[in-house]
């Protein structure tokens, strides 16, 4: 009898422990794909949410598949609203939407540059407490207005927005032009004593940099020497993800362009691969393209020698593949290979130095040197007292790049082209 009683008791408790009452059908939710925060005009904040309308059914009764006309307006709806805080804003949006807003499927958390520059520590810590917030959301800082930017997020290729969004962030591994940071690590970094947070820099490209008429030029500009929204581009997505927003104590203090971001990733050891253009060692008019990828994690050594000032030594290990050679020098041979390697090494060292000095000037340790530096302290209290993030600007950084050409593409020997001189 006692057992039966116990069983009844326990069984009656179990439903109370679970969340059966809040079961909702999938189509009772409105899933937010992108959420954005702007400075408000009629209220403190202007929030923007992008929702799929879930209208066109793949095999529905209407059949017919998807109509291409006006798909921007049809498939997704972007709602902007001025409100005091984000979550009250969501409630306000629900006064015009028949489905409960759910942000457990959000991909991007977009913040405008204004808010980022004003400091977003408080905003973020308040934000992440909610259960539905996924810390794997991608953190993006947008130049200009968030509400305009989110309207332009559309799948140009394919129809699935979420795939487009995820795929876009994977491009970090293809070109290394931005440093994708998820919400979770962004917040961790804001609160860390060892590293400063970064986020993807994005902007709308209105195609104004693409000049239809003009004098052809021989001038060479590096592929990564642009910020978001600046590419001389004509068509495609209006949204552009290029460069990195640099933070200091939760405030955005500066930007890295594509090349600087690559250097940042190299020092962090997160760089995957990307093509670089260098001037040929023998003929500076010719351009050689080299695929550079990270060989192993960089070797970082930190000492505190002169009056507690940090002395940082960074050794970056990279390897590469010859992608295209305009010159006719046989760089595949053991004789000439070191010449090309040295050239690339010098070029990359210059790139890395440039971004380190920029970071030093902004006093923002985005590279995470603090991780290594903290190992020199015996207790965490000592470390926190030292105030690394403040003293980072005083450090002297020595860099070294080791670059090896591993592969030469599909050619193993360069033969000179037969031109008129022969």
């Amino acid at each position, binding site marked *: 009898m006692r*057992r*039966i009683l*116990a*069983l009844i008791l326990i069984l009656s408790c*179990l*439903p109370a*422990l*679970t*969340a*059966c009452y*809040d*079961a*909702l*059908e*999938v*189509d009772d*939710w409105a*899933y937010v*794909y992108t959420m954005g925060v702007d400075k408000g005009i009629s209220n403190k904040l202007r929030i923007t949410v992008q929702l*799929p309308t*879930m*209208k*066109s*059914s*793949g*095999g*529905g*009764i209407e059949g017919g598949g998807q109509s291409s006309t006006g798909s921007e307006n049809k498939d997704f709806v972007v709602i902007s609203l001025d409100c005091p805080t984000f979550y009250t804003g969501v409630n306000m949006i629900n006064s015009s939407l028949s489905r409960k807003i*759910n942000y*457990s*499927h959000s*991909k991007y958390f977009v913040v405008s540059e204004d808010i980022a520059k004003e400091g977003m520590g408080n905003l973020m810590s308040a934000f992440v407490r909610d259960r*539905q917030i*996924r810390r794997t959301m991608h953190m993006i800082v947008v130049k200009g207005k968030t509400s305009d930017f989110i309207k332009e997020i559309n799948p140009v290729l394919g129809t*699935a927005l*979420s*795939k487009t969004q995820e795929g876009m962030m994977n491009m970090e591994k293809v070109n290394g032009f931005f440093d994708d940071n998820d919400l979770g690590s962004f917040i961790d970094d804001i609160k860390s004593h060892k590293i400063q947070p970064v986020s993807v820099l994005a902007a709308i490209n209105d195609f104004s940099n693409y000049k239809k008429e003009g004098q052809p030029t021989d001038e060479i500009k590096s592929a990564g020497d642009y910020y978001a929204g600046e590419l001389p581009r004509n068509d495609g997505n209006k949204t552009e993800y290029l460069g990195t927003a640099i933070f200091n104590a939760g405030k955005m203090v500066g930007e890295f362009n594509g090349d600087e971001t690559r250097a940042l990733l190299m020092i962090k050891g997160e760089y995957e691969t990307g093509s670089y253009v260098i001037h040929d060692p023998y003929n500076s008019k010719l351009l050689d393209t080299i695929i550079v990828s990270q060989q192993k994690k960089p070797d970082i050594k930190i000492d505190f020698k002169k009056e507690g000032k940090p002395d940082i030594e960074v050794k970056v290990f990279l390897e590469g593949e010859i992608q295209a050679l305009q010159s006719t020098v046989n760089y595949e041979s053991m004789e000439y290979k070191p010449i090309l390697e040295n050239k690339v090494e010098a070029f990359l060292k210059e790139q890395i130095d440039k971004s380190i000095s920029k970071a030093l000037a902004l006093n923002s340790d985005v590279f995470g040197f603090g991780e290594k530096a903290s190992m020199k302290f015996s207790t965490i209290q000592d470390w926190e007292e030292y105030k690394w993030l403040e003293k980072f600007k005083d450090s002297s950084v020595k860099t070294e790049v080791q670059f090896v050409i591993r592969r030469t593409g599909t050619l193993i020997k360069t033969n000179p082209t037969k031109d008129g001189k022969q």
Partner: protein
Amino acid sequence: MSIFTAMRKLFIYSEPKIHNLGFELLEGDDEGALQPPDQTRANQAKQDAQNSGLNNNEMSKGNKNAIKPLGVSEWNKSRKGDGENQKLNPSQTQNKNQAQNDTISNDLSYSLNVLKEKFGLPKNEDIVFRKFKIGKKLDCFMIYVEGMIDKSSINLSMLPTLMSKDILEDMGKQSPVDFLIETVIPVHNLKKESLYGECIKQVLSGASVLFVEGCTECIVMETRGYEKRSVESPKTEMVVMGAQEAFTENLRTNLTLVRRILKTQKLVTELIPAGDINNTMCAILYLDGVASPRVVQEVIKRIKSIKTDLIIGSGMVEQFIEDRPLMLFPQVLSTERPDRTASFIMDGQVVIITEGAPFSMAVPVTFFRLLHTSEDSFTRWPFGTFLRLLRLFGLFCATLLPGLYVAMVMFHPEMLPTELLASIVKSKELVPFPTLLEVLIMEIAFELIREGGIRIPSIIGQTLGIVGALILGQADSVGRPGKPHACDNRFGHGIGKFRYPKLQHGSCYKNREILFYNCRRLFGLFWNSFCHIYFRVHYLQYEVFWYSFPDACGT
């Protein structure tokens, strides 16, 4: 209730029960009669113990305390009063008297009348009484059931031989029955019988029986020759590689099929009748010296104690001999393949083949055995292993998929990949039912079609196939009333389920899965885990014929 005890058992190790306790509560009144040798042995041991005073042998220690075995009904009666207790014995003595009356008379006409009366002649027109004179002198009659004997052997060899003129010339003072058996009757298998009851059983099973004037015994001749299905290829357990023979409804044929594979004298076949009225024969096959004698004895005991009028086929026997009627899993392993049966016997299992159904059953059984097929051993090991893993995967699909789907859609949409979620939401848009109802509708539709597919005569079966395909296909493509994902899910589940070698196993998962639905509908994934624990424990605690059911490496 059992949850707690079972959970406790999980954590606390307890000695397995020792079954040779001093006290035994028997289940039927005739229980003691089944094992007379044991009883006498027990008595002897008791006497020995008393005589020798000190005997440290454990067996005798157990028996020293032994109380005389008492049947449940006996015990009940003894509680009511001693007066009633005496009523028990008359039934036994009555049996003895009956046995005396049953003895065959040496008066032929008396025997004839007795048998005619017993068979209900002249109403019963199936039974043939053929009167004739052996060697033109000796009166006799033969009795058999029309249609169950081999006519040609009776017509062409038996009757001519018996009726020829001078066969009785050499007969001395011998009993005519012995003389006939030894020198005259050209039948390969015959025996003497002295009870009417036995004769009747034999006649009903197809033998022909010869009664001779002046003899108190009759001759039972094996002349069976009735219509039966020939050996065909298996219908429910098809294999690509391997034997293509299946059991038939005929017990003898089935035994032959097994014996043809196991050519060893150690293979023992014991025949036990089951069913009070129809006397279906159950054959118990085991490998002497390999099968556990305890299991063999227990199987025999259980089959003998079946108290029912009619036994047709193994499915009924299974239900009478299984350990726990409430257990969801099947507790015998049935197969229609002789080769598989043979492998069970070789593994030390006891196989029961029942007359009238083309299936054999093996006990004891373990969980993982239920997932095996004979083809696993016929194919090379990489593929065989893959098949077994695939089946295990199918099992998980069958149990979990629908419930998981409901739980994810109802409670945990964040667990679904975004695009999958989007397509679910889009297709759900047109469905007027909540997810659970929708899944249940699909479930019922599926089951109806399945059930119909089996029962409906094959002539109109085609129609059903088309209609079924239409319903499910339509549901799949249109998204109404069951939406595509529920459908896919349903199909994956259905296919997963029918992957089981054993149909009953599949139906067991059906019950489980319905439970899972409801749990998840109400409580989400939390209850999913709870149910899982419950079922794991449910199946961990069971023993089948004293062998742990979930035994992974057993047999």
